[in-house]
């Protein structure tokens, strides 16, 4: 299950020391090793000055000049290791109105109440405020083909609150969570771990009521699929050969399937060849192709 940890420490760390620690000591391919960084993360969370200094510097940046850090309304990148494998992020969690259309709009805008997994492991700690509540489920990725509407056996694990100094570890492509708005403004710190094959692994959105895959998070694999779809409509004489090669060789099965779909559009005379090449695809993807 998603792992909850309460590391105890009286020491403090700076973000630079924290990233140096994980770069030296953490194996990005070992969940146990990543969890062992929870003590260092707790030391960072005990440091009450670095984040306010970061925010203050961000706000003092010259108007119209370059500002570094925030890359969305809610998230700021605080630093990363030289190889980009480990990233340290702060997430700012705003409460939303409790009822009405505005509440629904705000929840959607801030990505609350969306059941999703992650294709990368991450460790998170509460830094300020009561923390968001999260409903945690798990699934067995070895039983999932990975298409929209597919039935998936979901197991409810727990409802947890990311309080200050509490650490949660989310297992990649296993834990599913639904974040609920905090009672008041809250901040969490995340250690995100990039594994080499992340760009090939989908991130799913789940419908926990129906127990199925409701769609895909727009991680890099899904953006690649959407781009390949575009190539079936915006192409020239060189495009079909490129799509054919991608359909033959790409390591991502959904990418191969979308390359075939776009090949059929860009080169209608290749339809028979497309169906022949589709023989290597899983049945659900072949069925989609036939339609």
């Amino acid at each position, binding site marked *: 299950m998603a792992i909850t940890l309460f590391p105890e420490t009286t020491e403090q760390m700076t973000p630079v020391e924290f990233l140096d620690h994980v770069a030296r000591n953490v194996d990005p391919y070992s969940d146990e090793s990543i969890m062992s960084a929870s003590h260092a993360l707790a030391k960072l969370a005990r440091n009450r000055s670095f984040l306010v200094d970061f925010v203050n510097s961000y706000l003092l940046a010259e108007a119209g000049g370059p500002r570094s850090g925030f890359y969305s309304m809610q998230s700021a990148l605080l630093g990363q290791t030289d190889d980009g494998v480990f990233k340290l992020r702060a997430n700012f969690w705003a409460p939303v109105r409790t009822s009405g259309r505005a509440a629904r*709009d705000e929840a959607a805008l801030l990505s609350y109440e969306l059941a999703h997994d992650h294709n990368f492991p991450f460790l998170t700690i509460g830094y300020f405020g009561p923390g968001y509540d999260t409903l945690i489920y798990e699934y067995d990725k070895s039983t999932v083909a990975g298409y929209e509407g597919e039935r998936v056996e979901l197991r409810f694990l727990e409802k947890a609150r990311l309080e200050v100094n509490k650490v949660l570890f989310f297992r990649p492509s296993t834990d599913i969570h639904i974040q609920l708005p905090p009672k008041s403004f809250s901040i969490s710190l995340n250690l995100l771990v990039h594994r080499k094959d992340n*760009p090939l692994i989908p991130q799913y959105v789940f419908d926990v009521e129906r127990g199925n895959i409701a769609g895909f998070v727009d991680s890099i694999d899904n953006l690649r699929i959407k781009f390949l779809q*575009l190539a079936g409509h*915006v192409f020239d004489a060189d*495009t079909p050969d490129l799509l054919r090669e991608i359909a033959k060789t790409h390591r991502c099965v959904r990418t191969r399937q979308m390359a075939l779909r776009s090949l059929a559009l860009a080169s209608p005379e290749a339809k028979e060849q497309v169906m022949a090449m589709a023989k290597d695809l899983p049945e659900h993807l072949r069925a989609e192709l036939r339609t």
Partner: protein
Amino acid sequence: MKILNSPVHPCIADAFTHFARSSPHFSIDAAAEFIESVVTGGQIRDAVNHELRTTLANNLYESPFWTTRGLVLVAAPSLILAVDKVPAHQSRVLSSLSQDAVVMSLTEGVHYDRYAMPADTRLDVLDPDVQLVMNGHAMLDRGTPLAVRAEVDVIDFYAPGEQRYLVKAMSPVRLDFTWSFDRTSLKPWNISGAHLLDDQIMTALEALEHLGGVEHAGTIEHYLDARSHHVRWKALQTLNAVAPERALLAFDRFLTDPHPHIRKAASEALN
């Protein structure tokens, strides 16, 4: 819109350099000419093939140009050029564009409904009685540029049952706010800021309110003169939390703020 490390796709770079030299400031006519040149000149198809070749060479390629709707090919301060998928259905909510734009369909079968903001609408104040004016429905002919004016036009593109794509050239943000309307009533749904930076600044101010202290009052006061009234008001609230005695001085000047909602709130707070 994502911000790219490299703001121009290599296949568009020459055409964009030429455009940027001849038209340093966005104009609808120049943007229409630019779109026509990159569509008929084949640079957009070249960009698609370039992305396919790179994907073929490296399965792990994480293109900075892929977006949730297609491709962004130029993300320069003076112009954004993007290829976007057209929604299959009419949207429930209609949104105004805060940028001038020129749109060209890359495929047949794109429909659009055209609406207009009523003349003399004050665009920075949400007025629930404003009602969009429907100005008709049409098909967007492939290869024909359509101009969309910030502050005036609300255009709803859709392509029932088929995958269709548009190429859009957009100006820098002209209007700080985006209005959303309910399709049925054509009345306002909400008004939101058009700049991600403003939202980020408000989040940072919120964080400072909780983590900071009186020593940060100077930073906060810097935003009492922000262009966006949302940011000005957030700065005043933050200042009031960390240094109420300094906020009291600021309340006075907000009595003459250009935005009526802020004048009213300041007046209520002082009374």
